[in-house]
């Protein structure tokens, strides 16, 4: 009788009773990543604990997926085709919400832990991203462009999907490592953790933010180039003139 009741409680919608839903306590190894001259990318650890109602660890297996997602932006994606013997940009498509970075890691392959509907709702997996293609294009063409976009970003290291890389200890503690390449765009990133059981997302937490920014000299150069373009250009000219003149001067003495 009690077992049946417990199962019944499990199946209740998440909103029904906060007391009976496990709570996630997620965190990341760095809340802030500074890009400096030696920056070659970073490795981020996403970890945390699952707190079950009344401390009872349920039987059966739970799965965890973690997602790190960069700010979204609008882009134009161009496609090259071979025309008259040379490859030129022949077709293009606009997407209005492309994450600048998206990495997902899960304790088992996604298709084994969530059904396709859930995956679509929570945007789990590179093929489930809601990229908001704009303009009226037919579905097959949209799919082709979206696949091209994902493939490009995956090889650039800006999109990642890894299965089996979330380690879960005693159904309570989880941890996962995500790699961030040096070409990572700056901005505020969100880290989301999802607890999954029986194909359903039981609880999701996306309250952890990570700030990626350039600091020091790199920040200075970026700001100068953007906001003080005239001065920046003059500096670039001056530096190159001085270096060229200096080398000539030194070598003439040798």
């Amino acid at each position, binding site marked *: 009788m009690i077992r049946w009741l417990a199962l019944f409680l499990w199946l209740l919608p998440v909103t029904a009773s906060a007391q009976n839903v496990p709570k996630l306590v997620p965190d990341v190894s760095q809340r802030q990543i500074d890009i400096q001259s030696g920056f070659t990318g970073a490795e981020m650890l996403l970890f945390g604990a699952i707190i079950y109602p009344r401390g009872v660890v349920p039987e059966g297996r739970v799965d965890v997926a973690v997602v790190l997602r960069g700010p979204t932006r609008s882009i*134009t994606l161009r496609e090259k085709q071979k025309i008259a013997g040379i490859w030129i940009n022949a077709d293009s498509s606009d997407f209005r919400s492309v994450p600048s970075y998206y990495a997902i890691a899960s304790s088992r392959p996604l298709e084994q832990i969530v059904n396709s509907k859930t995956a679509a709702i929570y945007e789990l997996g590179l093929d489930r991203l809601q990229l908001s293609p704009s303009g009226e294009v037919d579905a097959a063409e949209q799919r082709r462009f979206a696949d091209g976009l994902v493939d490009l970003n995956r090889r650039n290291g800006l999109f990642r999907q890894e299965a089996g890389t979330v380690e879960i200890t005693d159904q309570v503690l989880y941890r996962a490592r995500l790699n961030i390449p040096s070409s990572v765009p700056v901005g505020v990133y969100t880290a989301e953790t999802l607890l999954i059981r029986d194909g359903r997302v039981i609880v999701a937490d996306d309250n952890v933010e990570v700030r990626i920014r350039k600091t020091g000299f790199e920040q200075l150069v970026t700001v100068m*180039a953007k906001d003080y373009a005239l001065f920046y250009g003059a500096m670039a000219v001056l530096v190159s003139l001085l270096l060229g003149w200096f080398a000539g001067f030194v070598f003439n003495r040798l």
Partner: protein
Amino acid sequence: MDIYLPIANLSVNALVIILLGGGVGVLSGMFGVGGGFLTTPLLIFYGIPPAVAAASASTQVTGASVSGVFAHMKRGGVDFQMGGVLVVGGIFGTGAGAAIFEILESVGQIDTVINILYVLMLGSIGGMMAKESLSSVRATRTGKPVVAAKRRHHPLVASLPMRWRFYRSGLYISPLAPLILGFVTGIMTMLLGVGGGFIMVPAMLYLLGMGAQVVVGTSLFQILFVTMASTMMHSLTTKAVDIVLAVFLLIGSVTGAQIGARLAQRMRPEYLRLFLATIVLLVAIRMALGLGWRPDEIYTLQAL
């Protein structure tokens, strides 16, 4: 030694960049060219975004040509009047180049146009140089001197109105001719990141008919100022000048240029030109093949 490039937004190996600059510098010292035609494609090949590569390469050419300009000035090898007209044309050219750059980028054809321009320019000039240097090598082998073509300017140049006297160049021609030449080179500088020395030098010799003793110096003078203008123009429009990248390229290339200049004194000029022609043709062939080969990336992404 990894270094993060703040404008290109990626991390590169500083040693690779210095060596790349150094190699190009040796060639530029040997031949008196800026070397931008090699830097830009090599940087793109290494993974630097094309706009950043072209913008930063033109900054590097400025540094590479400074000491050359001083050396030629001392020798009286610069026609300042001619150079001034070329520079004025060149500055307008960089402005036009910036507009063309923007239009081509918005329709997504900038990389194809850059590639085609490279193939046409390097192919034709490399071919001309190869032909010329082969015949002079043959001439030295057989001992028969080549009959120097009589120096004179192209009939089209002679037909332009309003003539000026360019004393040092030994010319009495319309300033419109060098103005247009400077303009075209300015566009090339902006789009391709090249100084344009190897368009300028043959054009000065065979189109304008300038005296050989001022050709290289005046061309360097023009390159110096037009690459400066193009750096400014890139800073203001494309915002693609990466000063960190430019400095590492410069460290290599200014050193290399001095080594190259010393090497050049020990080599026979006709073999030197044949060597340069071979390099230019190889780059042209590689780029031509690149147009027809299936590219690594079918898709490219542009932020809106």
